[in-house]
């Protein structure tokens, strides 16, 4: 709800949201202020009524807590069996989300929305399960206590002194379409507790007792009532906005909260969320990076944690780069029309503030029209990192260099003094100052301080009377020392900032150019494999970690398209995580709340039409380095890849359509050409056979001729059909050659045998060298080549001609020729004769061929990676030359030695 006025886009969005609502399930919450007020009971009672009205109600999960009343109410309901998970030897009972999705009830009851699932479940939290159920269109009823709402978490911690770990993002609470407040007076609740009607184990009784104090309960109750009331208020607002057109509208608010590594920031973020909700305003969480902390430092880790909290609470997050924190924040705030800035009260000492100023003061000073809220920070110990990651390795080298530099300067100054080139102490000081400044600039803060101390000491020792003692005669040298130290500090901190900024700028530049390069690469590539490969290796190079890419498969598990050797691919949770990410178009995996036990961070490949897949990224010290920018960078890469994949798919679809159209064209040509060829022999057969049947008296010679006609034409028809079938099989690439090692002599012999009838009257010469290697070919197909060539030769040469078959090794290929001494080929048709339905005319015996024989030969050789060409020999007669590449190695079979 960014804008308060209903503009057309908003209205459209609302219509869309309403449409989505038709398919999305609705959530109803039974909301109470403490355990034991009767939420589960109320939910079950309501469900009972709903079922009586004919609704398909199924219990997904209800904590029985061994309460007889609850168990009695559960009776008669269909209950989805719980999933049992082994965790450290304990069997944990969990809600089975897959079974629920499978069952698809009209209404599902899931108790305890804020529950934390056992490790190994799909989601970390039960509310995530519920979100997925809602998305799947299942209506859900659930229960919730007020202390589980994230933004109230710290307030409640203060009231009750009990820290609640199971929290729920406010947006999930807001997701609930209806809220039923289950209320009971604190006195009654305490009474119920004392009667033992509230679930309590003996060990927990003590802690619970302190929680269930009437004062606590009253405060909690008030919070719950207020929360419910504010929801109703918001509902009314929404309704009014939807209906009314002209109403006085409040000006739009936008909040910005400054996020820092300080542990007090969490509280500031929560406060910002509460304020944002109160104003019904969008809010931004922003940090300014000028420190240049290495990504694995505790500081960066804290920062990342705070950003995650802000994201959970619904903030837009951003890391800014700039010289000055205050200016950067204000500039960004103005560019985003921010009206209120929230910042934590600084913990720095007064002296520090006086010396270096404070962001808070500067902000207050320069904020102008923007309101600035300073929030008292309070450390949240539980938010602190549990595992201190390694600090950057300490190196003594810069110190040594700084010391060396000062020593050198000392010598130089001493030399100058000795040579009486300079007598003024000011010059000596200047020399040392220059050295200190250089050390500060080059070696950082520590060496700078060391060098300034050393400089002062050596200045004192060697140049100030009394010489060669550390005694100072004049107090004014204290000032010299102070100035040197101050300059060292200022220069080193400025340099550090500069370094950090240069580093950041470089990183940004690297990301931008990587994105640009990736875009260029992707646009020049075709094919899923190449696209995924290019993007995968680019991302891996950029993040310096492991990358795996999963692609959506129609109605199947995602396919691992990149990173088969990565540890991601081997992790058992990776495939389910990828599938979830693709289905939900949301991030998951390590560092998120969904499937956090995965070993990588998964994010979707969001295309313009749908999610194309998921990319998994695994970094060595993962948590600390996935800053918001890095995530954004990855997301950009992902989007580019997704769009490239879509473009590729579109190109494939288009070319498939074109091929289809072409195939259609070929089919039509084939049909028209074939129908003529088929009709001719059929007409001859029908004519000849009917004459035989009908003629009463027919002489033996005529009878014989008619029968021969039938036999010949039937054979021709058969040959034609064979050719057409073979051609269409070859065209459709339905024929995968059945390649085996063959002896050429045998193939030629077999072909000659098949056409022996046609070859009657021809002289056939076969000259094959005895040392030919075995050929790796489909024997039937190569035989077909020879059959077609031989038939062709008999068709275009007169009887009595000689047909010669030869073969010879020619480098890395086998050259096979078939020559005749007939009239040769008509001029200029050497290439055309291999086209379908081309017949060279004049034909010796009236066009008996199918016009497919040579086309088939060429198709077969294409299939074998060979070639076939035709020519007329200089001495006359046609020559067909076949070239077949020979494989590197053919098997050797040795005939056993003679005895």
């Amino acid at each position, binding site marked *: 709800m960014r804008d308060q006025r209903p503009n057309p886009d908003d209205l459209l969005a609302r219509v869309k949201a309403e449409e989505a609502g038709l398919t999305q399930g609705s959530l109803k919450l039974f909301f109470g202020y403490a355990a034991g007020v009767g939420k589960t009971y109320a939910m079950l009672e309501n469900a009972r009524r709903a079922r009586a009205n004919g609704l398909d109600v199924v219990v997904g999960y209800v904590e029985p807590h061994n309460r007889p009343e609850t168990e009695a109410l559960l009776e008669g309901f269909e209950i989805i069996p719980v999933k049992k998970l082994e965790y450290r030897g304990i069997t944990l009972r969990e809600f089975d989300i897959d079974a629920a999705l499978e069952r698809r009830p009209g209404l599902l009851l899931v108790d305890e929305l804020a529950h934390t699932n056992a490790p190994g479940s799909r989601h970390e939290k039960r509310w995530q399960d519920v979100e997925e159920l809602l998305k799947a269109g299942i209506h859900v009823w659930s229960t919730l206590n007020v202390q589980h709402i994230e933004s109230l978490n710290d307030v409640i911690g203060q009231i009750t002194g009990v820290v609640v770990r199971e929290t729920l993002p406010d947006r999930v609470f807001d997701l609930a379409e209806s809220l039923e407040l289950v209320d009971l007076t604190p006195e009654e609740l305490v009474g119920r507790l004392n009667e033992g009607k509230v679930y309590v184990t003996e060990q927990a009784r003590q802690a619970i007792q302190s929680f269930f104090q009437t004062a606590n309960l009253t405060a909690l109750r008030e919070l719950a009532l207020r929360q419910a009331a504010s929801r109703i208020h918001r509902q009314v607002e929404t309704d009014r906005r939807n209906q009314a057109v002209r109403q006085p509208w409040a000006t739009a608010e936008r909040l910005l909260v400054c996020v820092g590594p300080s542990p007090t920031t969490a509280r500031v973020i929560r406060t910002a969320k509460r304020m944002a909700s109160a104003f019904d305003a969008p809010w931004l969480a922003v940090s300014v990076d000028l420190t240049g902390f290495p990504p694995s430092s505790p500081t960066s880790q804290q920062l990342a944690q705070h950003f995650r909290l802000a994201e959970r609470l619904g903030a837009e997050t951003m890391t800014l780069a700039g010289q000055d924190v205050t200016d950067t924040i204000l500039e960004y705030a103005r560019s985003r029309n921010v009206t209120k800035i929230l910042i934590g009260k600084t913990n720095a000492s007064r002296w520090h503030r006086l010396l270096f100023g404070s962001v808070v003061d500067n902000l207050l000073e320069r904020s102008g029209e923007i309101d600035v809220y300073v929030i008292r920070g309070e450390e949240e110990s539980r938010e602190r990192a549990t595992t201190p990651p390694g600090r950057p390795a300490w190196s003594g080298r810069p110190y040594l260099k700084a010391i060396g530099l000062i020593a050198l300067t000392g010598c130089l100054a001493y030399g100058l003094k000795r040579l009486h080139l300079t007598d003024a102490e000011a010059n000596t000081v200047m020399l040392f100052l220059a050295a200190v400044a250089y050390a500060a600039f080059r070696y950082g803060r520590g060496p700078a301080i060391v060098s300034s101390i050393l400089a002062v000491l050596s200045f004192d020792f060697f140049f100030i009377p009394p010489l060669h003692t550390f005694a100072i005669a004049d107090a004014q040298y204290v000032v010299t020392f102070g100035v040197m130290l101050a300059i060292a500090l200022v220069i080193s901190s400025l340099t550090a900032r500069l370094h950090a900024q240069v580093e950041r700028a470089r990183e940004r530049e690297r990301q931008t150019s990587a994105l640009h390069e990736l875009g260029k690469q992707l646009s020049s590539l075709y094919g899923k494999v190449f696209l995924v490969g290019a993007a995968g290796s680019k991302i891996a190079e950029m993040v310096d970690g492991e990358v795996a890419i999963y692609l959506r498969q129609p109605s199947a598990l995602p396919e691992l398209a990149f990173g088969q050797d990565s540890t991601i691919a081997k992790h058992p949770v990776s495939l389910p995580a990828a599938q979830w990410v693709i289905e939900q178009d949301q991030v998951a995996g390590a560092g998120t709340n969904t499937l956090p036990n995965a070993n990588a961070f998964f994010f979707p490949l969001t295309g313009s039409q749908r999610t194309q897949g998921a990319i998994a990224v695994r970094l060595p010290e993962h948590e600390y380095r996935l800053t918001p920018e890095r995530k954004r960078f990855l997301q950009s890469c992902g989007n580019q890849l997704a769009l490239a994949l879509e473009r590729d798919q579109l190109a494939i679809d288009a070319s498939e359509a074109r091929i289809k159209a072409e195939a259609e064209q070929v089919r039509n040509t084939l049909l028209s050409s074939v129908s003529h060829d088929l009709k001719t022999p059929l007409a001859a057969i029908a004519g000849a056979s009917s004459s035989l049947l009908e003629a009463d008296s027919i002489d033996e010679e005529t009878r014989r001729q008619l029968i021969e006609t039938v036999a010949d034409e039937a054979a021709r028809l058969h040959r034609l059909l064979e050719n057409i079938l073979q051609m269409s099989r070859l065209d459709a690439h339905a024929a995968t050659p059945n390649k085996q090692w063959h002896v050429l002599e*045998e193939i030629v012999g077999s072909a000659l045998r098949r056409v022996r009838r046609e070859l009657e009257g021809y002289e056939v010469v*076969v000259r094959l060298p005895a040392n030919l290697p075995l050929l790796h070919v489909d024997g039937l197909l190569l035989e077909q080549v020879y059959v077609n060539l031989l038939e062709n030769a008999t068709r275009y040469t007169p009887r009595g001609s000689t047909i010669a078959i030869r073969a010879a090794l020619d480098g890395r290929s086998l050259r096979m020729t078939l020559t005749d001494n007939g009239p040769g080929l008509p001029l200029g048709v050497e290439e055309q004769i291999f086209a379908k339905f081309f017949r060279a005319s004049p034909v010796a015996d009236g066009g008996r061929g199918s016009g497919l024989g040579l086309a088939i030969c060429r198709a077969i050789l294409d299939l074998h990676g060979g070639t076939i060409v035709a020519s007329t020999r200089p001495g006359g007669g046609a020559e067909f030359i076949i070239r077949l590449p020979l494989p590197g190695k053919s098997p050797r*079979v040795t005939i056993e030695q003679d005895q």
Partner: protein
Amino acid sequence: MKPGNHYVLVIEDEQPIRRFLRASLSNEGYRVGEATSGEEGLRMAASLPPDLVILDLGLPDLDGQDVLVRLREWYSAPIIVLSARDQESHKIKALDQGADDYVTKPFGTGELLARMRTALRHAHHVGPESTTVTIGELRVDLAAREVQRKGERVHLTPLEYKLLITMLKHAGKVLTHRFLLREVWGPQDALENHYLRVFVASLRRKLEDDPAQPCYILTEQGVGYRFAAEIP
């Protein structure tokens, strides 16, 4: 034995093929029974066992291969299958499952009758009667393990000789690559087909006038080999 004594069962669903087979086989003196489906064929074969079965592989009710397997469970007389040209794998399967031979559609009567004669001859006397076999210009003395071509002695290696004898024993009948490899090299050697091809080529060089146009060892491309029963 005269053909007139033979009862042939034709299992074929296509009426025109049945009609032409009935006409030509009766003309040759065979008694012909006709079944139009696999089930009917199995029933008829069981009620009156024929001397030879002609089985079409493409039947409407049962797969021809299934009919073949069920028939072979109890029936030992020759079975000739009819198949289409491009179905080499079906032919091999049928032969491996006990068919004696195959004829490719479309086929001439002469070819079918020749195959039937070969099959019936093999069915009636197993193994050569005499110790010498003469085909064309080839003379094989089984007792002396000696092969002569045009009266001259041909030197064969032991495996070549074994291959020749195996084919000779089944002269006129198609033998699959697998069958020959198993018979000659034994079941334990899983050799590839090209092994056999090289030996056949070497045998042809020793026995044939023109190994590229053989008249003894004929190639059944994609299926196996057939040793010519008679030289034209």
